[in-house]
């Protein structure tokens, strides 16, 4: 097939994947919405649910609740299934984009967006069964669909060759490491947000309040804290390698200085420092839990700013193909 055909396939498949992710998101949204009205009061039930790691516990309140729980489960499964479908199309879109351009598909912002969001989907789908992350479906599909939609509508650049500065195999290593760790940062950030929600709900229950069934379906706050840590512990060394080893080596080749305080470098370092602080916070009394989760969320925002804001607002050496 010719590059033009590949480009056409990619341009067809990426928006399709976006739509499917969006439908998956709606399915997950439905799952959450159905659980809103079902409230759980008994304290013991929360504890049972937490120790079982997110499995669906059918409250003994009545059959209607059990029905509803079954439907929530179905919505969650449909969501995951659609996410897989979206992912396969997404993957095909990224691969054909690479074939169309005759190089790795992350040479400009559009390509980085579709690849980085693919990384989010990969990290999610890799961990979804291992850590029982089904409850993260809404957040992941929301982020991936939003990034893909934005990329298609606002950042689209037709496939073409690279500017000379990008002619290096370090492009493959540096950007791939950044994209994958970025995917993991996103998952870590989403888990941390849900952690804060769940931790608050658990506290409310301890004070005699209630918890909606959608929140009850989430694992215990403690387990979520552990999940966030695992994902971020995976991402941090990779990010360190990507921006503090691969990046500087390439910068030394391309620009003759391995560190030059270019805005992108600064924000990569800021991201690194924030996640370093996260890891330290978890080892420090009084910073564990809520504060650590807040740091993880801040780190995610910093990463997103580095990826979007720095390219659009600040000019620097990391500007290619218009953005």
């Amino acid at each position, binding site marked *: 097939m010719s590059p033009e055909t590949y480009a056409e396939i990619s341009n067809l498949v990426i928006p399709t994947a976006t739509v499917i992710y969006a439908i998956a998101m709606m399915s997950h949204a439905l799952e959450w919405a159905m659980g809103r009205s079902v409230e759980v009061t008994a304290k013991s039930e929360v504890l049972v649910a937490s120790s079982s790691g997110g499995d669906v516990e059918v409250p003994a309140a009545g059959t209607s609740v059990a029905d509803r729980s079954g439907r929530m489960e179905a919505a969650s499964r449909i969501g995951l299934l659609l996410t897989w479908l979206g992912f396969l199309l997404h993957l095909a879109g990224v691969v054909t984009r690479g074939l169309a351009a005759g190089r790795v598909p992350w040479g400009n912002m559009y390509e980085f967006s579709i690849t980085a969001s693919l990384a989010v989907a990969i990290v999610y789908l890799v961990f979804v069964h291992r850590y029982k992350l089904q409850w993260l479906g809404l957040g992941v599909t929301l982020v991936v669909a939003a990034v893909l939609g934005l990329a298609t509508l606002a950042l689209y650049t037709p496939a*073409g060759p690279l500017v000379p500065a990008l002619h290096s195999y370090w492009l493959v290593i540096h950007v791939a490491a950044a994209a994958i760790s970025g995917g993991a940062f996103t998952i870590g950030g989403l888990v941390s947000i849900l952690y804060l929600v769940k931790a608050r709900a658990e506290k409310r229950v301890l004070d005699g309040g209630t918890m909606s069934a959608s929140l009850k379906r989430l694992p215990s706050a403690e387990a979520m*804290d552990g999940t966030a*840590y695992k994902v971020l512990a995976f991402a941090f060394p990779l990010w360190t390698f990507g921006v503090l080893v691969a990046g500087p080596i390439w910068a030394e080749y*391309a620009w*003759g200085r391995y560190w030059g305080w270019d805005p992108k470098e600064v924000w990569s370092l800021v991201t690194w420092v924030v996640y370093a602080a996260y890891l*330290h916070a978890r080892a420090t*009394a009084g910073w564990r839990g809520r504060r650590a989760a807040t740091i993880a969320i801040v780190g995610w925002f910093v990463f997103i700013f580095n990826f979007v804001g720095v390219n659009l607002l*600040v000019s620097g050496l990391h500007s290619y193909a218009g953005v």
Partner: protein
Amino acid sequence: MTDVKERVETPTPPELPKLGLLGWLRWTWRQLTSMKTALVLLFLLALGAVPGSLIPQTGIDPVKVADFFEAHPKLGPFYDKLGMFDVYKSPWFSAIYLLLFISLIGCVVPRLQVYLKALRARPPKPPRNLNRLPGYQSFEPAAEDDVLELAARELRRRRFRVELYDGAVAAERGYLREAGNLLFHFSLILALVGAAWGALFGYRGTVLVVVGNGFSNSVAQYDDFSPGRAFTPDDLPPFALTVKGFTAKFQMDGPQRGAATEFNAPITYQETPDSPERSYDLRVNHPLKVDGTSVHLLGHGYAPRVTVRDGKGEVAFSGPVPFLPQDGNFSSFGVIKAPDARPEQLGFEGYFLPTAVIDERGPISVFPDAANPVLAMTGYYGRPAVETGKPQSVYQLDKNKLTQFGDGKGDKLRFQLAPGQNYTLPDGRGSITFDSYDRWVKLQISHTPGLNLALVGISLAILGLMGSLFIHPRRTWVRVRTQDGRTVVEVAGLDRGPERGLGDEIQAIADALKPELKPDLKPAEQPEKPKQEQP
């Protein structure tokens, strides 16, 4: 870094009144090296790095700094006082990272001692209530004697360090976690030392060389030169190079038309004045390394070759003049100075347009390659300048005492020249000829000692980091005790950090101890999950 928990538990308030100087110093040291301080310093570092990415920096783009001063006459000097234009060299930023550095050393050095001691320590005795631990199994064995022996063997197989106590086996695994942690922090120090070394003894400079010309490595030859504080000019290796040519390829069609796809500057160089001449293709991502020094191709542009004749018909200036590209299509701005023109000196400024198109907005360039080169200029004349010795920018015309030529219709004079064309200035003040054009390349010459040290440091740091993140210390105990006349074997474990299959391993250990002892009992004696029974 130092775990703050232990520190917090040691009560100091009663001693406060008689702390004394030494006490205060100790207190300050403890505060500085505590994890909370390290956290705060980390946040300050992150926060402090931000303004440098948003406000133009002298070290990166001095022209933008000057623009900022012009645009914000009040804010500019204020920012300047705060060091905002040179954030990464400012005293406050230095203070943050120096404090962090001290905090780092103060944390890891004592921790190293603790670790070395811990390495020799025996796995601790089992706590009294094993069933309160997160991982717990208990069962009744057939014969008492073999269990501990079997447990020790099983635990060793699982790479635990095993210690036998009376009636119990204690085991610990994951000692390398702390080793990784320490390696990470010490390597980080190594990397920072490497970076500091490079900043002190290194140098970086750029020079613009018109194709056909040469460069020899001495400070005077640089257009701009930023040495480290400990740099001496003797550190410059005495190499020389000549730029033989320059080719650029551009995208001819498609949406990214005009985007460069390839640059190449063939050069010849000599390592020392006596060494043989070698050739090299200087490209982006393909720097030349001479004697530890790197030569990079940073940019390129056009240098129109002009001849200026003065009112007397004498050649007042002749040669290539580098023009600086202003946009992606290389509309290049430049000035041509003929201060020696008589009776009046002459000066020109304007644009070199590699592919010129003239529309209602005036002449513009529509492609970066030189398909239709045009020189679009305006001219000035004035009394011969007094030689002041004050350095002047070659890219700016001091129009203070100069008068712009008019076109005779009340407008300013503008003229366009194609290569080979000549323009005669009004009132017999002379002429200018656009002979041809050359290309120039911007070269960066840099030397960063300590580079390998920094690289080794950061690579080891990652290795240590992975050790500290992916090795999970676990303590396990197996105890045999008598309860209500029955013998009970208890297997229990404890993890540091988040739960990682502790229950599975405790179960597996218990299973390994069970079958050989009482195989017939195993299905009936299903393991209870003590975790759920906890209040």
